[in-house]
């Protein structure tokens, strides 16, 4: 069972976003970058599957040298190999093309990614890679079992769970709840520091033309001050709030 895990380095979820001077990106200065939280579930699931079925876990990211930190974190958790893909990818489609070309060469049984990156919130790279490779996909997975070249996954949908049968090779995207990601051990961290990260360049022809361009990035409008009731007993405060919601906001 050879598994490729797609990881992305993103700003910590506690980050307060500032817009950089160009108006299309965030200010990266002073931001703490971490492994995308959903990718941690993907890494953990791959490690557990390796424990059950043997094989190798390769973590892969598309990015610059700084993004190697995310790969080191995955190596410290227990991944066997790491690949950093250099490509002129500017959107999800070009990123997915670069990933698909490298994954094609690695020919794994399974690709696992986080269900979305918490920066651009697109959640499309996993499915795009599956489509480009003509592989099946199961997204937003909360439970996964593999056996003899096939799998059963549970995926979270509105108000329920879908149980999906699929065959390998396939792309899975991980949702919170799939597992509890382990912390990297100290020996794991020491070992990860010495591991070589393989660099792969994907040429411009393979990456192709981008399909999206960011026109602008703005902070959301500030909300104006509200009516806050304080110093009232619970009963009068509740009566007044319901009155305001009914008569003023006309919501109930």
């Amino acid at each position, binding site marked *: 069972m050879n598994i490729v895990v797609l990881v992305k380095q993103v700003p910590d979820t506690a980050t307060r976003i500032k817009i950089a001077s160009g108006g299309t990106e965030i200010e990266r200065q002073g931001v703490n970058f971490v492994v995308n939280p959903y990718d941690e579930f993907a890494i953990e699931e791959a490690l557990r599957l390796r424990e059950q079925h043997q094989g190798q876990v390769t973590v892969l990211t598309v990015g610059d040298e700084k993004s190697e930190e995310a790969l080191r974190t995955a190596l410290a958790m227990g991944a066997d190999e790491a690949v950093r893909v250099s490509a002129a990818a500017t959107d999800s489609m070009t990123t997915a093309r670069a990933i698909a070309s490298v994954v094609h060469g690695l020919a794994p049984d399974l690709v696992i990614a986080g269900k979305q990156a918490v920066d651009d919130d697109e959640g499309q790279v996993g499915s795009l890679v599956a489509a480009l490779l003509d592989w099946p996909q199961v997204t937003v997975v909360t439970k996964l079992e593999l056996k003899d070249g096939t799998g059963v996954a549970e995926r979270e949908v509105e108000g329920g769970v879908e149980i999906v049968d699929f065959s390998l090779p396939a792309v899975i995207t991980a949702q919170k709840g799939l597992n509890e990601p382990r912390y990297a051990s100290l020996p794991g961290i020491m070992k990860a520091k010495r591991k070589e990260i393989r660099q792969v360049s994907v040429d411009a022809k393979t990456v192709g033309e981008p*399909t999206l361009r960011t026109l602008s990035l703005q902070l959301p409008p500030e909300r104006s001050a509200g009516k806050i009731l304080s110093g009232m007993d619970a009963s009068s405060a509740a009566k007044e709030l319901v009155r305001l919601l009914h008569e003023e906001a006309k*919501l109930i």
Partner: protein
Amino acid sequence: MILAVLEAEGGALKKISFELLTAAARADEALSSGGVTALLIGPGAAAAASSVPAATAREVLCAEGVAFEHYAPQAYAQAVLAASEAASAKAIVFGATSYGRDLAPRVAAALSAGLLMDVTDLFAHEGGLAARRPVYAGKAIAQEHALGERAVAAVRPNAFAARSQGGAAAPARALAVEVEAQNVRAKVREVRRETGGRPELSEAEVIVSGGRGLKEPANFVLVEQLADALGAAVGATRAVVDAGWRPHHEQVGQTGKTVSPGLYVAVGISGAVQHIAGMSSSRTIVAINRDGEAPIFKLADYGIVGDALEVLPELTREVGRLKG
């Protein structure tokens, strides 16, 4: 033409479908594309098609049959591509639901088209389609332009006003789609329902969410009672989900769901950055918290500084009295 990929269940259109028709009309206006064609895939497609108003779509294409009996991304993508071809679609619009989010990328990949995901508005830009979409779970808003001949968009639930229902139905016809079974290698076997009768979080008009201020898991029943009085969905913070008080599918925030209901009631929630990210686009926010300095009050349109455990039963009683 704009292709609107509608959603139905048990032969009835879902609420997102009427929102999608508004979004499709917006895209049609932006691209002067000559109208909207709707598509329904799966069992009950033809039945659901009869409630697509003629005012919203020129035609409804229905893909039914054994290949579409259960959701299968590869087969469904084939149907969308066939419909897109039949309608000469300039843009394809999905709901940013578990269905649309899963399916849209496969269609976008096949067309090499830009996929505008989870959009809250659509507009024209340099002859193409562009969109506003929240990023960083709503901490910032991006405007993105889909380059190339065709665009794909997935629209966020509750972001577009629903088109009015009723009136004459749009004409419907069956769409023939060739699907080879060996090309379908992932398929839904069954669906397990888990809402307990409450509305689903990402589609709900009203949400009541609880956090640490409820002190212990058993007190969440007070949140549920208010939610039921309001006909609301129940949400939770990451802190209480991680503590095992509530299931993850109720989590609102950057590693949970991003929601935009008409009314969001935050109970015993201080307002951590990652929680606020997931709910700050709600139209009206109500906060109930013991600490008057809590960041959630900076966002709130209405609030009560007080003990959630005392205020909640009173609120539930008042709402019940009002609704009679």
